[in-house]
């Protein structure tokens, strides 16, 4: 039986999905346009036996989330631009120490304080490269309220499976949008439990990877394991090491646990691409205008389709590469100065021309502008 449809905001769906995924700890600091996530967590978590804490700052929020996760509780924080910058150091700690958690970034416009209530996708590259040093990243980006609910569950599942922080890259368009959603029944959801192992021998191989696995099993604090976690390069026992062979092997494993599992991690939405000569690439809330434009273009007889990374990091390079032979042109549409554009250009590698329609003034790209750009690109191709 389908549940009753209700009007729900993207930020609210993020919380409800996270709770369905088993999130029982939230630490955060108020910041527009993500604040509704904190507010709803404060209201809802005690109802399900979970815990909400408003920390003194963004750095503390990220630290508390990592602490809670080491204690065995699925944990989340949410923020926006300036706060995302502040969280970066501890996100890197989570990457190195392999602590699962989910960081929601509801992007807003501009560097620094910018336009706090206006939409943007300007944190795309920061989601990949925000914390220092080579590190693994998984980032997912939803384009509707309905997808937000299901995708945040996937964010938790991937986080647990790969023992890594997952960035949930929302934008103001989806975060503040309300639409009718019918939430799936709990039995229709797949929820990854934390992979836990206890007492695997004399205390001390907590970062050893079992045969056939790509991450060590977790051992929550308070169970008698008595092991050590550090942000320094460490050996399989979890203790600091200056041995560059051991450090190098650790860093490589952290990257490869993602790189070798792209089939499992990467998801895209491809719409009417099979006969298309033009692909519009977009992600997140921008897809709303792109879908409208693609439908109008099709109605006008143009062979246009949409390529939408749902997993935005790692970038779905293989999926896009597979589409190149049929394409005459690609149009990248995003609410920034050209960030995913760089990834698309890298993959297209001058085999297919890549056009760009961006906006970074805090306003939203309407479907008419996309349609006009598509006509221009088609027209200039005919003129050649």
């Amino acid at each position, binding site marked *: 039986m389908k549940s009753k449809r209700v009007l729900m905001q993207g930020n609210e769906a993020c919380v409800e999905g996270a709770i369905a995924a088993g999130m029982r700890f939230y630490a955060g600091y108020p910041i527009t346009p993500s604040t509704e996530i904190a507010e709803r967590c404060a209201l809802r978590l005690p109802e399900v036996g979970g815990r909400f804490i408003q920390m003194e700052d963004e750095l503390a929020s990220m630290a508390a989330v*990592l602490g809670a996760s080491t204690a065995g509780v699925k944990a989340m924080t949410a923020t926006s631009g300036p706060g995302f910058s502040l969280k970066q150091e501890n996100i890197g700690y989570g990457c190195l120490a392999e602590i699962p958690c989910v960081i929601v970034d509801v992007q807003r416009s501009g560097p620094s304080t910018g336009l706090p209530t206006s939409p943007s996708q300007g944190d795309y590259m920061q989601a990949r490269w925000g914390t220092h040093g080579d590190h693994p990243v998984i980032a997912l980006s939803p384009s509707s309220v309905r997808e937000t609910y299901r995708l945040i569950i996937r964010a938790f599942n991937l986080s647990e499976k790969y023992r890594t922080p997952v960035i949930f890259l929302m934008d103001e368009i989806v975060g503040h949008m309300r639409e009718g959603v019918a939430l799936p029944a709990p039995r229709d959801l797949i929820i990854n439990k934390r992979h836990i192992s206890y007492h695997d021998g004399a205390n001390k191989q907590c970062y050893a990877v079992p045969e056939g696995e790509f991450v060590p099993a977790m051992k929550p604090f308070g169970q008698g394991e008595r092991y050590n976690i550090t942000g320094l390069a460490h050996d399989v026992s979890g203790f600091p090491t200056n041995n560059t062979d051991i450090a190098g092997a650790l860093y490589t494993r952290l990257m490869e646990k993602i790189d070798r599992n792209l089939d499992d991690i990467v998801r895209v939405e491809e719409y009417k691409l099979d006969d298309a000569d033009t692909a519009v690439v977009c992600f997140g809330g921008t897809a709303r205008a792109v879908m409208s434009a693609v439908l109008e273009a099709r109605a006008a007889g143009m062979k246009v389709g949409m390529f939408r990374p749902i997993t935005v990091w790692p970038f779905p390079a293989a999926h896009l590469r597979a589409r190149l032979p049929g394409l005459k042109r690609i149009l990248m549409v995003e609410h920034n100065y050209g960030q995913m554009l760089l990834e698309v250009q890298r993959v297209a590698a001058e085999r297919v021309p890549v056009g760009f329609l961006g906006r970074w003034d805090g306003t939203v790209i309407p479907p008419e502008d996309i349609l006009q750009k598509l006509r221009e690109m088609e027209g200039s191709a005919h003129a050649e």
Partner: protein
Amino acid sequence: MPSELVHKFMRIDHLPHIWCAGCGNGIIMHDVAVALQELIDDPSVPISRDKTVIVSGIGCSSRAAGYLDFDSIHTTHGRAIAFATGIKFARPELEVIVLTGDGDCSAIGGNHLIHAARRNIGLTVVTFNNDIYGMTGGQYSPTTPTGDKATTAPYGNLDRPFDIAQLAAGAGATYTARGSAYHARETTELIKQGVLHKGFSLIDVYSVCPTYYGRKNGKGGAVEMLQWQKEHMVPAAAYYAMSEEARRDKVLVGVLSHTEHPEYTQQYTGLIERVRAQSGK
């Protein structure tokens, strides 16, 4: 030969420690270990080793977490109390001990210190207070006395120093105390009381850093610096027996403040029960 305590509560395969000869940090770590051993071995105290977590930040002090054989986490610079808040708030049944330094907890981590104190969350914070940034080679910290020299204060430090214990008390900590590397037995007792206290506890323990602080400031070596603590730091009974005049150049070793206020995670557990009773869940 390592003592029984070292065998039982320290990770001997990770010793010897990295601290310089003469550093006070080893004594303070020993005090923490003895305090925990006495509490764990006491059948009337409901503290178990497996439910005790040691959290540290970054700096000389923070290497202590790795030497103590408990669940331990060596976090990022300044954030030990924030990580510890996450652990304690997620699992209130855990005993969470934070080992930190003067720079880690009162400069880069000062905000977390005052807010954890304000919440009265049940953490026990032990500061290894050596008046200097040792790990990076002797820069002035928030507790370096005015006028003293450091590599970043070659002409003398202009800043006024923090009294970390008073700072925590002013922010709402319900148990604050001061110990010293010299006064090991007294300091161990103060740490035990801090762990037993329900609420936010901070024990500010004066360490000695002969390598970077003492040498630069004509304080002599480790022996002379510990001698200064012996002569100028006075346990409570003797301190309060002194005249005001005699106390003027003395520092109290003992409890500075001790009050009762509901502990934060317990309050939240009550909130959960209230909300669930109201919503019938």
